C-alpha cells in the first residue's frame, strides 16, 4: 500500500503524460494464458474484461487514467470497434487476452494485432437486449440472473453479442440499443433495461371466439292457438253474439272447400280459423296467431327460428310424397338368432 502510493506520487512528480493511452498488442484467446484453469477460462469468456501485461499498468499509471479503466478496441484491418474493461494485468508481455466472443465480434484470430486505447464512456441510462434463444423465457427470475451476470461486464457496445452462463447453458444477448451513447459504462449505474422478443419467437395468434347468436327453435303453435281460442270461446258465450256472413262457399270444380266462420262480438274482435282438413288436401299449416295479452310498459321480442310459410309447405309436401312411396310398416322388427350370446 505504502509502496503503491509512493509509486503514484513518483509518477505524478514526473509530470504525468498527456493525451490518451494508446498501444498495440498481439491478441490471444483465454486458452493461451499461461497456467490457465478451466474456471479462469470461463470467467474470461463469459465476461467483458480483458487481460493486459503488467507493463501496461505501469504505463497507464503515468497517464492518470480515470477509474474505472475502460478501453476501446479496434481491429485496424477491418475497422471494427468495441469496448471493454480490464480484469487483471497478468498477461504475457506484448499480449492481450480477450474473451472469445470479443475476438469473434472484432473478427480476430489468435496472433492478430489489435489497437487498444483508453476510453471514457458515459454511464448507461437505458439498454435494450435481444435474447438469442428461447431458453431465456424459461428462466424463473430473469431480472436476478441479469443483475448478477452483467456484473462481469464493465461496459456495453451497440451490436455486441454478449454471452452469459446460466444453469449449465450459454445465453447470448444482442445489444440492440443503448442510451445515452452507442457505448456506455454499466458500473455503478441505474439502467432502464428493456427486451426485444427472443430470436425465433413467434407471436401466438389470438383465438377469436365466435359470438353466440343461435336462435332457439320456435315453440309449438298450440301455445298461441290456445290463447286465441280462449278469447274466441269467451266471445262465443256472450249474450249479444251474432253470426254474420254465415254460409259456405262453393268451388266451380265441385270440390268441397274448408268451412270457416266469423264471429263478431260487441267490444272484442277475435278472428279464428277452424281448419278442417279434407281427404284430398294437404295437412294445414298452423295459422299465425297474435298474442293480444299485451300490458303497457313491457314489450318483449323473442327471436325464434321460424321458417317461411312456403318452406314449411314444401317440407310437408315432400314428407307426404315420401310417405306415399314408403313401403308398409307391416312385418317390421328385429330378428334373433339362436347364437345371440355371441
Amino acid at each position, binding site marked *: 500500500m505504502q509502496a503503491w502510493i509512493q509509486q503514484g506520487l513518483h509518477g505524478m512528480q514526473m509530470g504525468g503524460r498527456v493525451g490518451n493511452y494508446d498501444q498495440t498488442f498481439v491478441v490471444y484467446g483465454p486458452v493461451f494464458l499461461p497456467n490457465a484453469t478451466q474456471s479462469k477460462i470461463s470467467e474470461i469468456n463469459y465476461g467483458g474484461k480483458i487481460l493486459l501485461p503488467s507493463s501496461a499498468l505501469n504505463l497507464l499509471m503515468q497517464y492518470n487514467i480515470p477509474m474505472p479503466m475502460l478501453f476501446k478496441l479496434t481491429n485496424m484491418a477491418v475497422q471494427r470497434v468495441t469496448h471493454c474493461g480490464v480484469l487483471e494485468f497478468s498477461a504475457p508481455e506484448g499480449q492481450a487476452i480477450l474473451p472469445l466472443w470479443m475476438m469473434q465480434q472484432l473478427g480476430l484470430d489468435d496472433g492478430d494485432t489489435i489497437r487498444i486505447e483508453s476510453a471514457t464512456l458515459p454511464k448507461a441510462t437505458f439498454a435494450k437486449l435481444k435474447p438469442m434463444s428461447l431458453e431465456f423465457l424459461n428462466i424463473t*427470475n430473469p431480472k436476478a440472473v441479469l443483475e448478477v451476470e452483467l456484473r462481469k461486464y464493465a461496459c456495453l457496445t451497440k451490436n455486441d453479442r454478449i454471452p452469459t452462463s446460466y444453469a449449465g447453458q450459454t445465453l447470448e444477448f444482442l445489444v440492440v440499443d443503448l442510451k445515452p451513447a452507442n457505448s456506455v459504462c454499466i458500473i455503478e449505474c441505474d439502467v432502464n433495461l428493456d427486451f426485444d422478443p427472443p430470436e425465433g419467437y413467434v407471436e401466438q395468434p389470438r383465438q377469436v371466439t365466435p359470438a353466440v347468436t343461435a336462435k332457439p327453435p320456435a315453440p309449438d303453435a298450440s301455445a298461441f292457438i290456445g290463447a286465441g281460442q280462449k278469447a274466441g270461446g269467451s266471445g262465443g258465450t256472450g249474450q249479444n253474439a251474432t253470426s254474420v256472413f254465415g254460409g259456405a262457399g262453393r268451388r266451380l270444380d265441385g270440390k268441397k272447400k274448408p268451412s270457416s266462420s266469423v264471429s263478431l262480438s260487441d267490444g272484442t274482435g277475435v278472428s279464428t280459423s277452424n281448419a278442417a282438413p279434407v281427404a284430398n288436401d294437404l295437412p294445414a299449416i298452423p295459422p299465425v296467431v297474435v298474442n293480444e295479452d299485451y300490458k303497457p310498459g313491457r314489450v318483449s321480442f323473442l327471436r325464434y327460428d321460424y321458417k317461411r310459410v312456403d318452406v314449411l309447405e314444401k317440407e310437408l309436401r315432400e314428407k307426404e310424397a315420401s310417405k306415399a312411396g314408403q313401403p308398409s310398416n307391416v312385418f317390421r322388427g328385429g330378428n334373433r338368432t339362436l347364437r345371440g350370446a355371441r
Partner: protein
Amino acid sequence: MPTNNHVQKEKFAEDRALLSQQNKEYAESLAKDIAKKEEKDKIRFEAEQKELRKKTIQDYREKLKGTVSQGPLRLLVRYPNGSRLILSFSPSQPMTSLFDAIILNPACPDYFSVRSVYPRAEIHCYPAWYHTIFNAEFKDETEKGANNVAKETNEVKCLETIPNNSILYVNLIQ
C-alpha cells in the same frame, strides 16, 4: 471528514446489502431452474427407455419369424382381441417355447400374462430378458405394491406340466 466517512460507510453498507439481495435471488432462480431441467431430463430419459424396451420386443419378434413347432401336445391360446391360435409342442420343450409361440402372433400385446383355465393357474413362461424388461416397464406399479410383478420361468420346467388340449388365455397388462 467524519461526516464524509460516515456517509461513505452508509453507502458501502447499502451497496453490500443490495449485492447480497441480488446474489440471493440469483441463487434461488438458479436452483429452481436446475431442478426444472433435471425433471425434464428425467422424463425424456424414461420415454427413451420405454421406446428402447418396445424395440427390444419387436426385434425379438422379427428374429422369431418363421419358426414353427410340432408335437403331440396341443394347446389353444386366446388373445385379448378375441383371436385364437392352436399350438403343437413336444412335451419335453422348455416353457420359453410357449412364450416364443405366443409372442410371435401379431395379436399378442407387448406386455402380457398367460393364464390357464383348467386347472386354474398362472403359466410362468417368461425368458430372463423379458422378465427384466417387464419389471423395468412396471417398476412404478411394483413399488406401489401392485400384483403385476412378473415371475421368471423356472428353467427346469417343461411343457409337459400343462395338460393336453388345455385352453390358455393371454391377458393384456398396461
